[in-house]
């Protein structure tokens, strides 16, 4: 595969990760923070931004660790442990850097950064990267796209939920109940994108 072809694939994968293969709405990964941190657009944007960054970087790092270490040593089955360790260390590192150089961003992200360590969407993105046999460049597109897709979904949800505050939701459905129903409707809407890429 030539570089231009690879680049094209990366772009397509990136685009489909945002819309047709949305990691949150079609694969249902990362539901926990999605339901609990989607009350306000501002915090949703903070968490989403952190997810985009961490997902892009860890998918690439994990690709390198997987192909350059595990495959060479014939230890592919160890990828779960390795991926988790790398994600945890990376988040720690990023936290340190942000804490040092941008205290304001650090305060805004607050608890979200460490939370990301245990976000299953992050690990999921790396595992899909292996299952689908992506190259490094395509993995980069995939990681970034999956992150942006997650951000888009949580942002849309937060926007809807902010408006929901002013509407009359039946008592029994308030909170997680209505959130899950909305998530279901959003997932249906995203299925509409599936024709886009044929």
């Amino acid at each position, binding site marked *: 595969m030539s570089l231009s072809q690879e680049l094209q694939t990366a772009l397509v994968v990136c685009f489909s990760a945002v819309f047709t293969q949305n990691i949150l709405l079609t694969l249902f990964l990362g539901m926990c923070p999605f339901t609990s941190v989607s009350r306000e657009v501002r915090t949703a944007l903070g968490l989403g931004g952190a997810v985009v960054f961490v997902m892009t970087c860890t998918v690439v790092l994990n690709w390198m660790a997987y192909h350059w270490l595990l495959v060479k*040593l014939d230890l592919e089955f160890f990828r779960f442990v390795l991926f988790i360790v790398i994600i945890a*260390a990376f988040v720690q590192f990023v936290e340190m850097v942000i804490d040092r150089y941008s*205290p304001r961003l650090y305060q805004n992200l607050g608890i979200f950064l460490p939370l990301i360590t245990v976000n299953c969407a992050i690990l999921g993105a790396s595992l899909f990267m292996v299952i689908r046999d992506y190259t490094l460049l395509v993995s980069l597109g995939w990681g970034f796209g999956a992150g942006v897709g997650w951000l888009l979904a949580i942002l849309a949800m937060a926007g809807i939920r902010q408006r929901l505050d002013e509407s009359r939701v039946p008592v029994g459905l308030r909170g997680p109940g209505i959130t899950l129903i909305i998530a279901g409707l959003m997932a249906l809407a995203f299925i509409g994108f599936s024709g886009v890429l044929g």
Partner: protein
Amino acid sequence: MAQAVLAVLAISGVAAMLALILVVAERFIARYGSCTIDINQGTRQITIEGGKSLLNVLTEEKLFIPSACGGRGTCGYCKVTIREGGGPILPTETPFLTADEQEQGLRLSCQVKVRNDLVIKIPEELLSVREYTAVCEKIEDLTYDMKRFILRLQEPDRIDYVPGQYVQLLCPPYPGSDEEVYRAYSIASDPAETGRVDLIIRRVPNGICTTWCFEHLQEGQTVRINGPYGEFRLSDNPAPALFIAGGSGMAPFVSILHQMEHAHDTRSVRYFYGGNQVRDLCLLDEMKRFEEHLEDFTFVPVVAEPGPEESWDGRRGLVTEAVSEEFDNLADYEAYLCGSPGMIDAAIKVLKSLGIDKARVYYDKFA
């Protein structure tokens, strides 16, 4: 087999490498340069390397802010006012700060990281708090579960305190407890003897510090304390006073009674001291001595239920019952309480029903 070894080696290698990167990164990234902390408008200025919690920095500078949990953000004692540079209040602090306190800029010093210059304010009396090394000169049995520890101060060799105040005793790690903890005990010695601090300690089953005091601390051993702390003290008001204590709550009153003796204080004092059984009461002889030497002091020991083999011809029942039997109206009185939270709450209820002004009830609650 070879593959298993290889796998373990590979994963450990990666993990070790990542740990190394983090350690190195911490060394280089988490450096905040030197920060200056201004305390109480220039009363004291310290310059330190940033990156640590404010509580740790102050402790290292021998400024002792009370803290019972050791900086884990669970006790809420280590409040200081931060005028500049503290950053926003963290979610870990909000449960301990009322809206008023947040408005005034109070923060938990264990949660505030020193990352830039700070302007802070701490209560004036904490500036006189110091750390002392002392030798445990003597350990006396007061009752079956209470001991008096007589500490002779070494460095510094004298302490200035107001009778009623407390010190924190450092309990070092020992078999069964692997961390340093501080516990607060009222000073129970004669304030005229400035080189000596007596602590009256009642054994708490499974208590970290009391177990150490009762089983490990030996006469002649060196201990560390810091203090003095606390607002509990005799007021300047010559109004008649009511002391109420139980068990080791005796401690601050010993010191206060010594103070009254030296000052030839003539105010009227009634001291109700309670225990479940006769064997729970301590220092009865010393109290008798104070009755003889003080102008108007009456000591009233009260026993809830004397044991089957104990002879007791004093008052029976709870201290609170004894107080309400003795008095019809306490409107002119001031009350001083020291004991368990349960006893104090019960006492406050009784005192209020007898017409005492709540602002004139002073207490030290030992949880």
